[in-house]
């Protein structure tokens, strides 16, 4: 800054003194309609004294200083705007967009491969399930057929035994013959058997 006035070994309170800063027109503690204080009734506000020679020199230096500062500020702002433009619209953005689309394409390809893998697994599983179903229905049909066959065989056996037994049936033709045979050969059922089924004791029939 011009004329480094602050290089002095003054105590802190001097540096903090309000005369170092610009006066700010702020009402502060009092509101609009409050009267002026009695102690300040005779006070005449006097602007700060100005040294003409100093003022000329200062004005000159200030214009130069402000010129430089304004130029610097504009320079930095321009740089920042350029960078932002590049990021949003320029080559950098295009590069980023291209990279992103490339990345997206690769990830979609990977996703498709994963879906394909799962599809194959699913198809394999469904095929296996179908095969098992078919096997099951086949087994059920076979079991049914077997049962039917056994049933038929059983019935045939029954018929055969019945046919065999029918030879010993008493009919009207051999009725009298059979009566004669029964009377000639009386059977004695008066016997006792043990637990194994053997005949143990016989009683004479009277």
């Amino acid at each position, binding site marked *: 800054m011009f004329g480094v006035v602050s290089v002095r070994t003054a*105590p802190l*309170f001097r540096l*903090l*003194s*309000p005369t170092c800063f610009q006066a700010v027109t702020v009402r502060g503690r009092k509101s609009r309609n409050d009267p002026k204080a009695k102690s300040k009734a005779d006070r005449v506000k006097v602007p700060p004294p100005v040294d003409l020679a100093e003022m000329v020199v200062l004005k000159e230096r200030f214009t130069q200083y402000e010129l430089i500062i304004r130029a610097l500020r504009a320079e930095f702002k321009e740089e920042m705007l350029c960078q932002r433009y590049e990021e949003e619209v320029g080559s950098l953005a295009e590069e980023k967009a291209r990279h992103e689309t490339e990345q997206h394409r690769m*990830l*979609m390809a*990977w*996703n498709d491969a*994963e*879906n394909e893998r*799962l*599809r194959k*697994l*699913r198809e394999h599983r469904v095929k296996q399930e179908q095969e098992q179903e078919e096997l099951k229905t086949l087994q059920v049909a076979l079991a049914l057929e077997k049962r039917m066959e056994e049933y038929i065989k059983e019935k045939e056996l029954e018929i055969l035994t019945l046919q065999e037994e029918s030879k010993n049936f008493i009919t009207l033709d051999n009725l009298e013959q059979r009566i004669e045979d029964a009377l000639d050969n009386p059977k004695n059922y008066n016997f006792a058997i043990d637990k194994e089924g053997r005949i143990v004791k016989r009683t004479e029939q009277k």
Partner: protein
Amino acid sequence: MPMKGRFPIRRTIEYLQKSDIFFKNTVKIMTVNYNTHGELSEGARKFVFFNVPQIQYKNPWVQVVMFKNITPSPFLRFYLDDGSQVLVDTEGKTNKEILQHVKKILGKPEEVLRAEELAKMVHSNPANFGPQKYFPRECMCEMEGQVPCPGLIPLPKEMRGKYKMQAEAEDA
């Protein structure tokens, strides 16, 4: 007061903030088709139960829709803003696998997240002063070791303009 529901931890802020899936800006809708019964849909069911709230918390502008018992196999479908759709088959996968898969294909990568965080930090500089709502401090008098607020504790006489002017006037 007891917590409500089967896994009430899902309703805590800490649980919701645990998720690290931030969808890309192109993702607009996420659709989940799953079945309520069946071994193959188990992963999808767990995903819907445990992870979808976390995802929705972190992506409030993505519409998430759930469909039950419509298709025989479970899947996720994402609708992007250019009209394309992304199908993710989830049959037989666990919910963690689904989460990792989704993060890989449609989540923002780590670098992008970090860059966005940096950009956000630039706008909110913690060194700034201002209203309590937006900045860490309003005035230097709040800081320890600094001059306390003159509104609460009056400044010593040496620091007050009134006495300094008086002293200068007396000197003069």
